[in-house]
């Protein structure tokens, strides 16, 4: 599938704005991910061609960053904190509850394409431990309990 014209135009603007094709690499990946949720293998050479860099150069950047998704993700991405403060406040129990409820492990997506679960540390919500950031707006939720967790999952698209 070729790049949608809107994205193509945005990428061109980006290169024009940055003035340097390499400088636009990371932003271009974010742009495509914002539009499509992730950056597919097909997109890498397409974006690279738009920028005037090689697919290798672009993928070197893409594969480095943890929040550039190179595999498809669900409509709602849950970044569950497994950091120390959350760990000290019951993060493991929340993790277990979440995994059994969704039936997936870290790095996996529910078969209905609704949720992707990723472990993260820390999410900058230590005062609300155990915490997670959820959804396209990366909303901070916490302290998570079995109840608040259910509410959050139900609200998700």
């Amino acid at each position: 599938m070729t790049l949608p014209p809107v994205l193509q135009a945005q990428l061109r603007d980006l290169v024009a704005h940055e003035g340097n094709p390499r400088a636009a690499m990371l932003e271009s990946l974010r742009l495509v991910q914002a539009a499509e949720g992730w950056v597919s293998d097909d997109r890498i050479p397409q974006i690279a061609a738009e920028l005037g860099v090689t697919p290798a150069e672009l993928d070197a950047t893409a594969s480095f960053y943890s929040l550039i998704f190179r595999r498809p993700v669900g409509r709602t991405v849950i970044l569950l904190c497994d950091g120390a403060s959350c760990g000290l406040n019951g993060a493991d129990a929340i993790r277990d509850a979440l995994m059994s409820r969704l039936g997936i492990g870290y790095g996996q997506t529910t078969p209905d394409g609704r949720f992707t679960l990723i472990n993260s540390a820390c999410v900058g919500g230590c005062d609300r431990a155990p915490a997670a950031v959820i959804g396209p707006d990366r909303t901070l939720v916490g302290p998570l309990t079995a109840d608040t967790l259910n509410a959050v999952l139900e609200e998700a698209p």
Partner: protein
Amino acid sequence: MSVKLTLNGREITVEDGRDLLSVALEAGVDVPHFCWHGALGSVGACRKCAVKVGDKVEMACMTPASEGMVVETEDPEAARFRAQVTEWLMLNHPHDCAVCEEGGACHLQDMVVATGHHKRRATGPKRTHRNQDLGPLLTHEMNRCIGCWRCLRFYRDHAGGRDFDAFGAHDRLWFGRHEDGPLDSPFAGNLAEVCPTGVFADKAWSKVYARPWDMTATPAICTHCSVGCNLTLNERSGTLRRVQNRYHGAINGFFLCDRGRWGPWSADAPTRLTGPSTLPDLTGAIGLGSPRASLESNWALRRRVGADHFFAGITDSEAALTARMASLLKAHPTASIADIAAADAILVLGEDLTATAPRAALALRQAARGAERDLACQKGVALWLDQAVRVAGEGRRSPIALVTPLPHALDDVATWPLRRPPHAIAAFARLIAAALRGAATDPEAAAIAQALAAAKAPLIVSGASLGLAGPVEAAAEIATALGPKARLALFPPEAGSFGLSLLGPVGGLEAAVARLDRSPGAVIVLENDLFHRADPALVEQVFEKATSVIVLDHLATETTAAATLAIPVAAPAEAAGTWINHEGRAQRSFGFRPPRPEAPAAWRLLAGEETDLDALLTCLTGDLPALAPIALAAGPATPRAHPRQSGRTAQDRAGRVPEGQPRTDPDSPLNWSMEGARAADPALATWTDRPGLHSVSAAYAAQQWIGGPLKGGDPGVSLREAAPDAGPMTDPAPGDGLIGLPLHSPFAAHEADTASPPLAARTPGPRVALHPDDAARLGLAEGARLLIDGRPAPAPLTLDAAISPGHIGLTGLRAVRAVKVKAAP
């Protein structure tokens, strides 16, 4: 400025601010290291080179030398850390030495042994990678990677390759391509040597693997372009197994191009010519010399047929142009490859350097970084801090102008990537020369002139890749205008071109045909597929007019097929011989296996079986006294060096260590012996290893200083003074019709390159390319089949806007000339 410091209790004087690792290595203290490389500098990634400086453990490669420093390399704290680094490095290494090509000559093995890591404590699983198919030249075994970053630093940072990179992060880091496929860069083969372990290995070697210490090693010269890089040829049981870089401070340094690394495989090509090798009576025959034959073979043919019956197996104009370029060697300071890398302003006129003299193009890429280094230097950044220099230099580039007809592989480092049709290049260059003399000219020419004039070490590059004299003459004119500070680098078409022109004024094929017209006779062709050297119509005339055509070659070619008699001779890699490179440097190459009676060196066949190389050289220099220095190209050949100084050392497969009299090589001071003392003469030395250090990574040990000349001096002698005198040339008017534009490839220049199976697998197919406007005008579409000068074109038409209008790009064309193009019926 120099400073005094104490290294392991010994006071040494070193240059202020140099990195301690280089300082120690030069002082003979082998500090373990991985990421540091003599040509790639320091980046501090592997943390292996820890030494004690004062009371602190520091990375030697990242620490500048300073006055009064006390450096202890064997301090227990430093040694403990180095051992710990080894343990870390080995956590994920597969420990697959038994099946690894590098086994036994592996820098990683050396370092593991050196730091005393014998027992594995870690119990967890190892991480694994999926390997990639990187094409026909290199293997990829990522699990062996220790993450020293050398591969990327060579491929991307040094050689400018952009299809290879680092992917992932933390301990999932890996190096490769975005997807499977051959590596683009014509310098990719160096990965096999820069990698300190077995991630990248030479695929050709891998297929016919022999252990490093089981192969004999022979010093040879690359015969695949006019640069003359130094090679080591590895043989086992009579077959070629591997070709490696042999360090030469002024030429190839640490790196080869892929054509050089895999070119010698033509020696074991499936198209090797076979058959009896007896010469018929050659009385009255005309001899056609070859630009891909050694000086000795060309001379032996010339002597055999007589100077007045000797012609060059190339066009008259190529012979004249080569002679003219050779004569210019005398008039201007020439540029070695090291000089090219050190130039601070460069003008390239017409030459497709990456294809015609690849190693020179790699050097030019380094020269481009000069301005970056200057700025970094101003900011106080030490030049050996490679990564920091690249950042601090703000991407500045030294002034480089490329005036060429086609997009150039070096455009990315050029200040002025200028496109001019072939015949307009000289005119533009003359504007630069005029500007240098103070005349007002066009602004671009003036800017280039200004950059050259302002430079301390300007360089003008041209050559024969267009077959035009204009750019060469203009290059000389500009060099003259710049005065003695300017160097001139002129690249003749082939490795034997200058050697051929040193034999005296010789006509080419047109002259030979004229001669045949006057007095028909037999023609003997030396190591030359004439159809690759001249217009087929001209070659056919040779065949028509000769009473018989006898061809001496190691390959079956179009010419041998058409010949009356084809006689097999040794491949260049099998025969001793002398090669004169682009700077007029004579270098001796030796055969990697004992001469085979059924395919002797061409010179031996021509001069008579009883002759050995020394005897031949004596005759040759007697005949042409100006060439006398070549006797010294590789140490004193007579009396022979003691056999124990042989560079070739190996047990043979029967397990015999030949004692008593080893098999001798009549053509070299080397024998096939198990005795492997280091040859004193650097031209004969093939091993830099020594106890504890067995890999190419230890090449620094043979250098006077890191990256400098070899201990004992870089091999080769200059023959500049022996160059012929040839006056200025002008190009004839191009003629009517489309102008054929030669298309070159870095992977193959001629039939001996494509005969090498690894290179054949990397060589792009032939191309016939027109500008879309011309195609439209002629009513030709993409993919059209054409007749060129009445013969079927080698490939269907491609449309390419990069071809200047009025031109047609043609693979295999040797010089710009008018061609007649029409659609094939």
